[in-house]
């Protein structure tokens, strides 16, 4: 499973919002942090708002804030909003007889996809935030080590 740019951007954004659910974060701040165009990001945030993951805050200091339950929302819930998860090989060969080689390759690709789906479906935003903290701690202790 290869994630599209919009999907990765959605995951980065949701995790930024979920890290501090009380804070309104302007879209421009996330766009700058991840080096993407604000216009591109706006489309992603609007889709997340439609799904109830974030909500827009109008006025001065506006932007978006987290609106969901981080213990309930999984990475798969976000990915589903942006990706077509139907089997790719079956769609490509529609109307034609599927060869044994294609079937064999589809079986292997499907094995990988199923593992990816199980992984994304079992990791909640809360779990991800703990991973983020662990990464920060590890990176800080690496920096503190004497050269």
């Amino acid at each position, binding site marked *: 499973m290869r994630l599209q740019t919009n999907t990765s951007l959605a995951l980065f954004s949701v995790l930024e919002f979920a890290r501090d*659910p009380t804070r309104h974060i302007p879209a421009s701040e996330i766009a700058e942090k991840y080096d993407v165009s604000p216009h591109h990001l706006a489309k992603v945030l609007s889709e997340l708002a439609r799904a109830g993951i974030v909500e827009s805050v109008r006025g001065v200091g506006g932007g978006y804030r987290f609106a*969901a*339950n*981080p*213990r309930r929302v999984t990475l798969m819930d976000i990915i589903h909003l942006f990706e077509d998860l139907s089997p790719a090989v079956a769609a490509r060969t529609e109307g034609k007889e599927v060869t044994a080689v294609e079937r064999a390759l589809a079986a292997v690709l499907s094995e990988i996809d199923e593992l990816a789906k199980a992984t994304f479906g079992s990791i*909640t935003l809360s*779990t991800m935030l703990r991973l983020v903290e662990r990464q920060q701690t590890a990176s800080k202790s690496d920096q503190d080590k004497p050269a």
Partner: protein
Amino acid sequence: MAKNPPDRKTEAANDTITVRPVRRGDLDQVIAIDATVTGLEKQSYWRSVFRRYGTAGEHQRQFLVAVSDRRVVGFVIGEVRDWEFGSPPCGWVFAINVDPEVRLAGVGTRLLQALEASFRRAGVRKMRTMLARENTLILSFFRSQGMMAGSLIPLEMDLDA
């Protein structure tokens, strides 16, 4: 999407829960929790599990229960296995279950922490488990405890009759 639930339930449950080794008298409640969750009552299976894990009295095998107000509300079973699949000794979690009525209150976390402590006392530094990838609920639980995909890949095949 629902807003964050309050954490009071978690705190209250943590205050009143005790985790201890299983006793013979707990077995009916363990069987009842398993039957509620799986839809199958497996009396003889659980009696044999009790004989194997519940009477060991050492850190190698553990069968622990979580008790709240003298009622068993969850259980965990684990064992230290040496050099299985070419791996140095590690602690395997074979089963963990919590009464659906008291879920999301930290009972599973308490059980797993107690098992971790016993594995540490047994001298192992890695804990493993294996479960169906469709079992999102328990998969999410283990992930929330910090578990990640390990170095082993389970493989299987159907055998001809």
